[in-house]
């Protein structure tokens, strides 16, 4: 279970989060929406202890993340997968080497098994043909899928997805959405998804929260949000543009 309680954060002299609170029960997926630059990525970074709140609590499995020491953070991060915006692949490693990095650094699996798991995960995201390419040689959508493979290869219990479908064509995007659902249903993963895509939100979400003014302004299940008449919700989830 992930829970944020009244989180405040000022960055570069500007208050970004002003009382951010929400809960993601275990085994469900929560979708965060909101304008660019509103603090969605900042919110995700609080969950892995990269950023610390000025005020408020960030709880994962009931443990307050900002109070963890380095060992505690290690344990926390081991059970979390994080897909960064644009993938954040390391550019001197091939796609396969990128995906195997978390396994090579922390698991004692034999080399062959690591390779096997990496290829299986790459297959899941439809990237097996690009395993030995370097990030600079592949498209943004492919980098994103490689980043997704790296996030789930360790079979984490939590996965944070920062714009998992940016720059993907509708067919691949749909494949990724179904993958997120499958990861949740098959492995019981708790997910937090940042997206601008209505299709993504409706496919993967158990609950959707829309951020405004540094906090969750509107929140609800998919049917509730579909039926909402709030202009803010309509702007993100209403008909028209995807």
């Amino acid at each position, binding site marked *: 279970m992930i829970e944020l309680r009244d989180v405040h954060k000022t960055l570069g002299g500007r208050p970004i989060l002003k009382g951010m609170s929400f809960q993601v029960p275990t085994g469900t997926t929560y979708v965060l929406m909101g304008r660019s630059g509103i603090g969605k990525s900042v919110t995700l*970074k609080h969950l892995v202890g*990269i950023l610390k709140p000025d005020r408020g609590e960030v709880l994962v499995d009931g443990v307050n993340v900002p109070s963890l020491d380095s060992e505690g953070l290690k344990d926390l*991060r081991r059970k*979390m997968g*994080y897909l*960064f915006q644009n993938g954040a692949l*390391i550019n001197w490693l091939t796609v396969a080497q990128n995906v195997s*990095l978390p396994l090579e*650094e*922390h698991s004692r699996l034999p080399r062959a098994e690591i390779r096997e798991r990496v290829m299986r995960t790459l297959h899941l995201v439809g990237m097996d043909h690009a395993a030995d390419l370097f990030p600079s040689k592949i498209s943004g959508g492919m980098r994103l899928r490689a980043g997704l493979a790296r996030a789930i290869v360790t079979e984490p219990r939590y996965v944070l997805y920062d714009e998992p479908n940016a720059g993907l064509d509708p067919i691949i995007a749909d494949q990724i959405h179904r993958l997120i659902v499958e990861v949740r249903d098959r492995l019981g993963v708790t997910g937090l998804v940042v997206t601008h895509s209505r299709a993504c939100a409706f496919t993967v979400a158990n609950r959707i929260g829309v951020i405004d003014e540094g906090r969750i302004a509107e929140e609800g299940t998919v049917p509730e949000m579909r039926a909402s008449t709030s202009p803010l919700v309509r702007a993100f989830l209403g008909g028209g543009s995807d």
Partner: protein
Amino acid sequence: MTPIHAAAEFTHRNLLGAGFTVRLLLRTLGRVHYLPRRMRFTLDQCFAAGVRALPVTLCVATVAGMILALQTGIELRRFGQQSIIGSVTALSMCREMGPFITSVILAATVGSAMAAELGTMNVSDEVTAIEVMSVDPVDYLVLPRVVGLTVMCPLLTIFSNMVGIFGGSLIGASNLGVSTQFYWRSVQESLMTPEHLLPKDVYTGIVKAVIFGLAVSVVSCSAGLRAEGGALGVGLAVQTAVKNSVILIIVLGLITTWFFYYLQIT
């Protein structure tokens, strides 16, 4: 913003930067035991540094040796002392010019590349991604670069010294009427001391090169890791890296020279 305010902010930012750099140095030293695990990256870094810097270093050092021989040779000839041009060139190259030229070129070629690489990684969340995978960016990214440059700087310095002295011999023969044979004998006499296995003038230069290599790499990595705000920030990081490296090379050069030749600590 008033000038005083701006000056205060400038000082504050630079102090923070210096603090970050010193901490990075200490953390890197504290992670040296990871070196065997990072051997491949480290060798890659050594190789890249050599490839990037060697051609420029050789050219510049040769020309620097020629300039040295020419400038001092002209003065020495007025006193009829041009015969010692070999020893003058050799001593200046080995003590000062070799390490100085090599490390400045390393700062401009390899240090700037480090700042650009790490800066790009930093602004595109790649460093954060490494941290989130519970991999320490210091041992994964910084350690190989620091060790690579600290090893390569003295190696390249030895090359610089040799080609610089060679450059001096060309000038000696063509402009000062000092035969090549005579020149090299003079070089040998000045550098070789019977009581030391390694002549002091050579090894103090090498020690300098090690210190400069360490300084340039740590300063450059630090600038890269502090980059923020997209491509512009990366550009500024590169600028900071080269500027700080050159300043440090000069200051540390003075300190080490003072240490070795004034205090006579050997």
